[in-house]
């Protein structure tokens, strides 16, 4: 029972802290560009503003268009429930493993792409087409990176993977290193960050993710944006907790949880700063370079898989 409470608490934390993580990345970016940043609470204010606004909908919108924000928010929430945040022993992990996590993301993307085409504007269709092109390459790369982990831990269950890595102690495993690099590239592409997509652009013709949500407003837009922030945080937590799990709470005492929370906060701050540095020194790639970028991610993940078989088995 306690475990379930904890899982619920972890998920709520995910939802509550996701805008803060986005604000932190933005703050570091502002610092790097020599300008003053908006308050860390700004994304929350934006969400509140959007929730209180009227929804304006195109006349051609079908029920699918209305359902999509809720499906996306729901799927992303469920995905967050699967990922160990401050404690490792998640009861949810017993019902859903990392492949289910990838499935949740795919489900959300599938509906978002449909909704992009639903209204019938040129930009929505363009965004959906681009998103699917990228997804077709990003998903295999993500799965191969995940399979590398699964082979290291002989399990696709995230809690088990983390337990295994903790139990082995600090060993340099080439397979994990390559998988980490592959997963980071996939994360950048999947969450629509520079150099793959520019979340801050106003240029309709260059958009990928934003083009699909151009027609959304009010609480629908708020849900989609919040889900995007949660997705960014999920990728962040996946990277820091799987590859650098030290400090995560392995049993459910208050001290362990407090330490776990503090440690994961610190790790996310470092990761967020790294992301901001990357986004500041790079321009956005030409759209047709993105496949090459994702093939690199896939190759890295494959090398990880191979190096596990060649170097680590036996």
């Amino acid at each position, binding site marked *: 029972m306690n475990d379930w409470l904890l899982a619920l608490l972890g998920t709520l934390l995910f939802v509550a802290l996701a805008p803060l993580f986005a604000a932190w990345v933005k703050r570091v970016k502002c610092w790097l560009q020599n300008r003053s940043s908006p308050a860390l609470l700004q994304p929350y204010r934006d969400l509140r503003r959007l929730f209180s606004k009227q929804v304006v909908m195109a006349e051609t919108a079908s029920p699918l268009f209305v359902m999509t924000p809720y499906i996306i928010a729901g799927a992303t929430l469920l995905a967050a429930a699967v990922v160990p945040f401050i404690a490792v022993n998640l009861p949810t992990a017993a019902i859903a493993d990392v492949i289910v996590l990838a499935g949740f993301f795919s489900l959300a993307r599938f509906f978002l792409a449909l909704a992009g085409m639903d209204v019938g504007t040129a930009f929505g269709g363009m965004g959906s087409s681009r998103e699917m092109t990228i997804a077709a390459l990003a998903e295999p790369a993500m799965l191969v990176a995940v399979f590398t982990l699964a082979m290291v831990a002989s399990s696709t269950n995230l809690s088990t993977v983390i337990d295994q890595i903790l139990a082995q102690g600090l060993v340099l495993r080439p397979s994990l290193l390559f998988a980490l690099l592959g997963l980071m590239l996939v994360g950048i592409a999947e969450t629509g960050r520079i150099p793959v997509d*520019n979340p801050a652009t106003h240029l*309709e013709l260059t958009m990928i993710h934003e083009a699909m949500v151009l027609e959304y407003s009010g609480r629908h837009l708020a849900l989609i944006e919040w889900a995007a922030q949660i997705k960014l945080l999920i990728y962040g937590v996946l990277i820091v907790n799987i590859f650098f799990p030290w400090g995560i709470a392995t049993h459910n005492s208050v001290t362990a949880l407090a330490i776990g929370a503090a440690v994961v906060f610190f790790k996310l701050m470092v990761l967020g700063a790294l992301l901001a540095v990357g986004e500041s020194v790079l*321009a956005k790639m030409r759209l047709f370079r993105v496949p090459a970028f994702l093939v690199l991610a896939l190759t890295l993940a494959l090398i990880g898989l191979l190096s596990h078989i060649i170097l680590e088995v036996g």
Partner: protein
Amino acid sequence: MIRFEWLSELLARCEDEHVLVRHGSATQLALVHLLDIDHEDWGSFAAVAHAYGCRWSAVWADQVDSGLFNLNACFEYRGDYLVVRAGVDLRQPVLPSQTPWFPAANRPERHVQDMFGIVFSDHPDARRWTRHQAWSEGHYPLRRDFPAEGDRGGEICAPDADYPFFQVQGTGVYEIPVGPVHAGIIEPGHFRFQALGETVLNLEERLGYVHKGIEKIAEGRDAAGLARLAGRVCGDSSVAHAWAACMAMERAARCSVPPRALHLRAVLVERERIANHLGDIGAVCNDVGFAFAHYQFGRLRETWQRVNGQVFGHRLLMDCVIPGGVSRDLDAAQLDALKASHAELGGELEELSPIVDYHPSLEDRLLGTGVLTPETAALLGTVGYVGKASGRDYDLRRDHAYAPYHRLQVESPVFREGDVAARLRVRTHEIGHSLALIQQLLDTLPEGETALPWQPPASGAEGLGLLEGWRGEVLCYVRFGDAGKVARFFPRDPSWLIWPALEQLIHGNIVPDFPVCNKSVNASYSGHDL
């Protein structure tokens, strides 16, 4: 160099082709040669000029009395400007087009057709251009009988929904309509793409959404009022247009301008050039998601414009140029403030320019994107930085040296690559050259008056102003009527000559690269739509 030493040869060729030049004058439009021809020869003269190698620059009409239009076209050859004029009868306003020889004349001639009802019989494109649906058939707003306040009494006209855009047919070809309302806060213009996947097969522009009736509301203004209006033709070229209008009026009135005022005007126009180039460099970087440069260059532009505000009283330098001189003099403290801002900008650019020039991630996006070949640029008669990036080595400050540039050493960059990176490089180089020019101008700033009292010229006096604005060649025609009031004002922004280049350079590029190509060209909507 002797001016117009080529003209007799051109006239001889006209004779060979049986183009009758009725009258020629070197004085009626000072510094520009004026040739009167028959309207039947309008097209054949263009053929001669084209064969001779002239560049087409502008066309404008003017209703000189109730039954007669004067149609004017301006050509440039080796830095000399030639205006040909033909009288067109109101009852039979039909004459051949120049577009078959000069593609640049396409839209300007349609503008004349829309505004005056002068029909170009063999024009390849009969669609409306500026007029949209706002006026019914047979209503020509620049004719004398059209009331200045408009003739529809607040009635809202139907949207222009059935403009027949060029269409590409084929499997998988689709159409993307963009604008005139955009997701960002930019000027309105409609772009119609025909695309195959992400590759652009064809782009067609549809402009005219910010038509303000500037040519009409200029009628009846006095000289000072016209200078104010000209400064608002296009907000980012305020000095260039105001100076061109004043130049035209001063030439019409045979009025000289004090040397100190000329230097100050040049300082103003160079400051405007630098401000816009700074903004553009940042904006091009922003369009490829490189926010760092965007904010840094935005900051430079902002501090630069704040100095404008402190020293000249207006951030965009509006109303500084007045007929007969400039409205503000500089004292020693203000000169120091200007010099300090030049030194500061120079220092900052030393640090920032290499980042933009040598950033591999930027190079990847900008090199080879949106190529305008030198051949296409020559065909279109492209001017300004778009031309200079595509091998068109022409700068009025050097090649049509007007005061005060005739005393200065003017450098002008030229590249042949024609891509976005080259257009960006022209801007970086021009900032450096402009800083050096301002230095020369301030070092040699003459003492004396900054403005002479304005004496209105006689009715019928006309003048043509020509100068190098930050976008390129700005042309302005002014004719005075009775009591020193303006009877005709025609400002030709360089945007007329660079908008067509955008349609060409986008061919074969991908749709998401359009914004950066557009930004690198940065033609004005307001200056074009008038």
